[in-house]
């Protein structure tokens, strides 16, 4: 319906009445989409809205069940397996698709190596890689190995690879999900540079402010339907969010209930040292949500993993309820009532090729033993409870967890963590890469847990989330505590000052408080 203004003559790539079903299950219903040269077109929608399927169809990885795709005004059938790259349509996956042991130059020329007398022309490939990286203002050595690079640099290598292939349409699946604020800014500069050269950029993001900042137009999907394609300047983050969820989004963050002033200290960390952690001390009180803010790589996860017994600490004391709690493995911390929920739900949190039930009970399998044997009824009941409590939505019981949307994976992981009935929960990026509707659900769950007396450490790179939920906020920088904020001090600018190192430590006794 909103395709009318998407004048087909100017579009470099367009899709008309695209539908897609996987077996019996329809995921896209008659979607129209187009993008013009030099335009940034964002696709937004809740998890499971069909965004990923749409970009896979636009890049030829999936073929539509019905509908047509036009490229340069001509109807085309895009070749599968990423061969559309040769035509100038490049998809950069969220997980990035680089061979970790190759060099940057190898990666840029992978699949179309330059040859001289039948042998690889390494010097020429290095020279041209350097040239491409240079035009992008990226400072990466063409000889560096991919596994030595930061995620942000890897992304830049992907972009360089795309540019060196004369990409005319660049499709990015949540490129900023794993980037820090500064890195995101660099990426956006890069994208602006590309669009100035006439490259069309399609990108998926859950971050509304980014979309407002970068995109010319935004397409909103909901449940596989096209809701609208609108120019960004006509929108506000609120109006986009409303289109996404189809309802008024009020109270993204639940009201804060401060813990009692005399609430007992349940977790106390003193002088903690571990790889990436330098002399961290803090206390956590019963019913408190303690936010850990900071840039990516500032050591927040390292603190959590050292406390939970996943990593060895080199010095320092941890105590729970006044008793020493220096855990040497996860089983011990879980048994003591402290659970860590990883930020890496695909690599560390869930078994993607298994079903919901074995994933839910994996941490607490011992609870489901009867006479030494697994009681599958008891496991099934646990899943039923978790599905209800955390609103986990699955097509049917036999789906593998890898097929669930990110939001449902996250809720399943939350369910898995809560199966151990912890008193202290460390949640690491609990809403990374999930839609705003699910975020809201998770925020309310976190607040409810705190209200019933659980204590929560919330590690998040989303400033708004830390500010919206935490009773107190600790800011980390380069492995140290850079600052501590309470009450009205918890504002974005203040956190940023500590995180970026503009403002230092403050008074020590307060940090240790």
């Amino acid at each position, binding site marked *: 319906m909103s395709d009318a203004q998407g004048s087909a003559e100017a579009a470099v790539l367009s899709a008309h009445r695209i539908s897609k079903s996987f077996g019996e299950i329809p995921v896209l219903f008659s979607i129209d989409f187009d993008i013009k040269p030099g335009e940034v077109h964002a696709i937004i929608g809740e998890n499971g809205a069909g965004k990923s399927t749409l970009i896979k169809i636009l890049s030829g990885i999936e073929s539509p069940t019905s509908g047509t795709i036009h490229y340069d005004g001509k109807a085309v059938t895009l070749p599968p397996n990423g061969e559309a790259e040769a035509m100038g349509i490049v998809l950069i996956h969220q997980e990035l698709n680089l061979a970790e042991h190759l060099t940057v130059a190898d990666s840029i020329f992978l699949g179309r190596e330059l040859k001289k007398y039948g042998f690889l022309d390494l010097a020429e490939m290095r020279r041209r890689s350097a040239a491409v990286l240079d035009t992008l203002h990226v400072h990466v050595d063409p000889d560096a190995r991919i596994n030595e690079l930061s995620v942000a640099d890897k992304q830049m290598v992907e972009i360089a690879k795309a540019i060196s292939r004369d990409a005319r349409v660049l499709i990015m699946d949540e490129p900023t999900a794993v980037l820090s604020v500064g890195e995101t800014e660099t990426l956006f500069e890069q994208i602006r540079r590309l669009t100035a050269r006439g490259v069309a950029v399609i990108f998926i993001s859950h971050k509304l402010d980014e979309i407002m900042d970068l995109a010319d137009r935004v397409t909103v999907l909901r449940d596989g339907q096209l809701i609208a394609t609108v120019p960004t300047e006509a929108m506000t983050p609120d109006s986009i969010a409303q289109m996404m969820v189809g309802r008024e989004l009020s109270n993204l963050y639940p009201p804060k209930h401060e813990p009692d002033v005399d609430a007992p200290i349940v977790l106390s960390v003193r002088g903690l040292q571990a790889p990436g952690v330098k002399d961290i001390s803090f206390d956590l009180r019963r019913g408190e949500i303690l936010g850990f803010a900071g840039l990516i790589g500032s050591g927040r996860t390292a603190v959590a993993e050292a406390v939970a017994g996943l990593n060895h600490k080199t010095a320092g004391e941890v105590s729970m309820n006044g008793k020493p709690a220096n855990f040497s493995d*996860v089983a011990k911390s879980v048994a003591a009532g402290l659970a860590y929920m990883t930020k890496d739900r695909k690599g560390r949190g869930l078994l993607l090729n298994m079903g*919901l039930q074995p994933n839910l009970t994996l941490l607490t399998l011992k609870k489901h033993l009867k006479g030494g044997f697994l009681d599958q009824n008891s496991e099934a009941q646990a*899943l039923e409870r978790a599905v209800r409590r955390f609103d986990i939505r699955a097509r049917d*019981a036999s789906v593998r967890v890898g097929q669930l949307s990110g939001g449902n994976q996250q809720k399943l992981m939350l369910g898995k963590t809560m199966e151990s009935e912890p008193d202290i929960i460390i949640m690491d990026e609990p809403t990374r890469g999930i839609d705003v509707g699910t975020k809201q659900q998770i925020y309310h769950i976190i607040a409810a847990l705190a209200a019933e007396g659980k204590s929560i450490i919330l590690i998040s790179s989303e400033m708004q989330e830390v500010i919206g939920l935490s009773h107190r906020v600790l800011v980390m920088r380069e492995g140290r505590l850079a600052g501590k904020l309470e009450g009205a001090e918890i504002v974005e600018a203040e956190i940023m000052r500590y995180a970026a190192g503009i403002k230092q430590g403050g008074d020590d006794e307060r940090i240790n408080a």
Partner: protein
Amino acid sequence: MSVSTHEAAKPAKGLRIDFKTLGPLLALILLVILGYSLNPLFLGEGNITNILTRSAFIGIIAVGATFVITAGGIDLSVGSMAAFIAGVMIIVMNWAVDAMGASLWTVLFGIGCSLILGVGAGFINGFLTTKAKIEAFIVTLGTMGIYRSLVTYFADGGTLSLANGARDIYRPVYYDSFLRIPYPVWVFIFVAIIGWVLMNRTAFGRYCMAIGSNEHVARYSAIKVDRVKTATYILQGLCVSLATIIYVPRLGSASAATGVLWELEAIAAVIIGGTMLKGGFGRVGGTVIGALILTAIGNILNLTEIISNYLNGAVQGVIIVAAVYLQRGSLRAGRKKAAE
């Protein structure tokens, strides 16, 4: 697409899964029909007993291998380990016969030694893979060479033979039957049932699948990864020891040629049965069927003239590759479904 469903908790078995489970069984049934149509003797009682008894060695070892492979490991040393254990068993039993004369105790002593050696050898494989963090392929390639060489050394390049007195007492373990089913088959049945229960009805089996599926997730889920992995190798050693215990009375001897290529046959049985070589998914029932399929192929070739018996390995090879290809096919379908 995300239909809210509370039925999610109901364990509904998908058709696809059932077919996957039945795949190896269907292949075995086809093979039996083929064998019978080529030579009706194939289904004679004597021949069936023969197939079952012969498949017991590989089958028992393969049940152990199912756990190792499911947990993401591999054990190449089982064939050499069997030869080594057989050799040491014969040496200690002969020594016991010399010292105290042959009696039931001699045989029990030999069996005890076998169990200790099996568990010990498994522990060494497990320890080196988990604590020394050497890849399982390399560790077991090394121990494979060591055991093979040791048995050759003990036999001085020839054959170690069990003393006659002990041989007479030990013989029934391979040749006698209970309810018309030979003892080796009973052991195989026993090992298969225990293996199935361990894999599907205990936390240990679930942990093996979790580790093979993603070791990081297992560690973050409070599973003692090293301990479970070591346990799979010990279990494998125990299975090798049991197979050796029923193997030794068959010939009453051991040499450098004992158990050659058993590791590959065991791995083949596991793979044909539907366990994934990269781990994460184990089927003990499938392994049993895989072992039967491998033995039945050899048997059919023996009974018929169509293909030379010497091509046994080639036919087995084709079957293994075909089985893995079919597994991949269903995987690819699964991945396509996942893409949304």
